[in-house]
């Protein structure tokens, strides 16, 4: 981390440094090109390029002039004019006043800020490149023709060609939304403050206080957050490790020389991958429903009665997905069912890469299978799969599909405190925030929860990668 920071610093200095030098020592065209990008290129004899960059600059300025600046001016309040519609007798129609839409203001402001930053940076780059052209001409050499310039982007600067579109996509569909969501966490955007008919505004850290237990007696977000976070972490831990070890053990069991027809067995387990996850999840949820077929089977063979006698259930059926404790257990079991074939597939590939002579040597030295597993196979697997395990853990923290499809419309909470903040016992942070936005339009709390999810994931990832790197260092 420290290394990248230093490198970043020096890169930044180089960037600003070269701009400063170019601006101070540049001729009139170089200086003018900061204001109108094309002027410098015209002055330095590159007409095509001049037209192109001026066109891009024009687009940016047009956006800022028509909507960007207006929104930025209202950014401090997020709008003050509420929508009002009055009946106009002259036209016999409802007339809506020129109202402010808080969300559009927020969105356009974020976009404008990004556009302004990008345009300033681009202007500085234009100046630097013009200074280079000026120097080339001062030495009496010819500058690149347009075709030569295009060629540079297929050679030395090929990465620019490659990265432009994907980076643009990420900026539009990930970065801008994230900035907006982070901003929403500091506003009172909820059902009572829904644009366009209502305005919302900045409220500082009030939503964070609510999440950590403040917000008066009626707000139970603090209680729900603790409960949901705990279950999210427990779930992620079990979901990751049960499927990982399940997959490894199954792969080893099938790979073993004593197992006949390994290919057939592998295919049998992989049939379940062929069916899309949402189909199997919706199917299984009906399989395990209170009046479902599995409960009928359990009742017929007396398991339900046995469990009732043991005091584990108090109903005439087994509440697989309707009782908090049972539901958590069932969800983890179903997740094993879903995840193990995938993990088996990957583990099979990785296991084949373990040097056979290493295992052979251990065998000759008298190691038993258990020792071989814990001393050779497992360290090797963890070494190769360590980073994948970390990403799996993060994916499971955000495992929306399994929880949502298994419990939505099926599980209802009886805990008043949880229900007051629209949470359930089986909710993960992500399903909770999804429901908050989709059913209760409580965007402010959803945004705060989203930021919390990010913090949990980030802390976990950084800590575990530290650990992995350290362990690798001590091993070698």
């Amino acid at each position, binding site marked *: 981390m420290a290394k990248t920071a230093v490198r970043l610093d020096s890169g930044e200095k180089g960037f600003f440094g070269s701009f400063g030098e170019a601006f101070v020592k540049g001729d009139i065209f170089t200086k003018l090109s900061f204001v109108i990008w094309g002027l410098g290129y015209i002055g330095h004899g590159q007409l095509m390029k001049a037209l192109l960059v001026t066109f891009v600059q024009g687009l940016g300025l047009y956006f800022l002039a028509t909507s960007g600046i207006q929104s930025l001016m209202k950014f401090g309040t997020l709008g003050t004019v509420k929508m009002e519609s009055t009946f106009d007798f002259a036209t016999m129609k409802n007339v809506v006043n020129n109202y402010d839409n808080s969300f559009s203001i927020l969105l356009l402001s974020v976009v404008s800020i990004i556009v302004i930053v990008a345009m300033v940076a681009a202007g500085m780059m234009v100046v630097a490149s013009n200074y280079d052209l000026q120097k080339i001409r001062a030495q009496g050499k010819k500058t690149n023709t347009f075709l030569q310039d295009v060629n540079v982007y*297929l050679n030395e600067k090929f990465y620019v060609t*490659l990265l432009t579109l994907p980076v643009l996509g990420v900026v539009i569909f990930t970065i801008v939304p994230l900035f907006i969501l982070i901003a929403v966490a500091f506003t009172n955007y909820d059902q009572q403050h829904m644009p366009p008919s209502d305005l919302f505004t900045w409220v500082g850290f009030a939503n964070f206080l609510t999440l950590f237990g403040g917000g008066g007696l009626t707000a139970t977000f603090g209680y729900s957050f603790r409960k949901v976070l705990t279950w999210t972490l427990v779930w992620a831990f079990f979901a990751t490790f049960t499927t990982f070890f399940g997959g490894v053990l199954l792969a080893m069991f099938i790979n073993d020389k004593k*197992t006949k027809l390994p290919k057939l067995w592998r295919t049998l387990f992989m049939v379940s991958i062929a*069916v899309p996850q949402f189909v199997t999840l919706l199917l299984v949820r009906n399989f395990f429903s209170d009046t479902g*077929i599995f409960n009928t089977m359990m009742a017929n063979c007396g398991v339900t009665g046995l469990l009732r006698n043991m005091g584990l259930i108090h109903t005439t059926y087994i509440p697989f997905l309707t009782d908090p404790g049972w539901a958590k257990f069932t969800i983890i079991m179903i997740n094993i069912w879903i995840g193990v*074939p995938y993990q088996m597939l990957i583990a099979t590939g990785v296991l084949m890469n373990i040097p056979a002579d290493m295992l052979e040597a251990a065998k000759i030295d008298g190691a038993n299978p258990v020792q071989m597993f814990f001393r050779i196979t497992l360290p090797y697997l963890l070494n190769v799969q360590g980073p994948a395990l970390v990403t799996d853990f993060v994916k499971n923290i955000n495992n929306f599909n399994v929880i949502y499809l298994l419990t939505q419309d099926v599980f209802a909470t009886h805990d008043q405190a949880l229900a007051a903040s629209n949470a359930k016992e089986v909710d993960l942070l*992500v399903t909770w*925030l999804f429901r908050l936005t989709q059913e209760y339009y409580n965007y402010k709390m959803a945004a705060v929860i989203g930021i919390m999810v990010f913090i949990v994931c980030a802390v976990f990832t950084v800590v575990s990668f530290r650990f992995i790197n350290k362990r690798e260092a001590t091993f070698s």
Partner: protein
Amino acid sequence: MTATNATVEKQLQQGRTKKLVGSLFRHLFLAVLAVIWLVPIAWLVLTSFSTDKGINFKNFVPEGFTLWNYTNILFSSDTVTQFPRWFMNTFVVACFNCVISTCFVLMVAYAFSCCRFKSRSLLQNLSVTVNLFPGVLAMIAVYFVLKNLNLTNSHAGLIMVYAGSSGLGYLICKGFFDTVPVALREAAKLDGASEARIFFQIVIPMSRPILVYTIINSFMMPWTDFVMAKMILNSGLSENWTVSIGLYNMLGKALINNYFSRFCAGGVLVSIPISILFVIMQKFYVEGITAGAAKG
């Protein structure tokens, strides 16, 4: 002499039986596991042929078999089931997503793996950080952005959401590109090939497993995705839905007792293209994943 021979014979016999019993238990254990893994799938297939339209709570095997569920969802669409439309919608979205995502992933992976430039590590660290935000979270904001652009309830919007930030999923692919020998690229460069030519004519042809893996992955996404499609298309007309929300909708409280077996038939029909793809590509898939994971 004969006595010792007999004991050796007896021990051998014992060893053989022990081995046989062990092998029997091993395969019995596997068979039990396999049954557990196949029961829900079997239920899906059996129910899809059931004469009973709703869920059968009493018996695992339906009372009567019929092809009606399949013919119904395939040929007679009503307001609830428009399976052929959904199938086509999903196919179109999948094709577009496949092309755009694959290009994005390959481009980013090559730039980060084979090109050296100043902001490389900064961009890589940024991408890792951005990946930590849950997709669902960004989705909510993306929804508003699309709504402002009037792109909700349209396939274009859905494709943009799927493919837009697909460049972030470059890691496995980059791991694979890293294994392409540097000397090969250097040699091509000495022979006068441009970076673009090296990318298209050397690195891409050498990366067939990961190419196939990326293509399948992006093609399958719209078939298996649920949450994004629900968010973007749910409030629109049912004829514009993708398979996943269409099928999900069939299991609503009011419909499930009439449509459950048709839902199963739809599930089986969706599984067919996915499993065909999967069987063909399975080899590449494993190769791609393990090469990327082991050497990345």
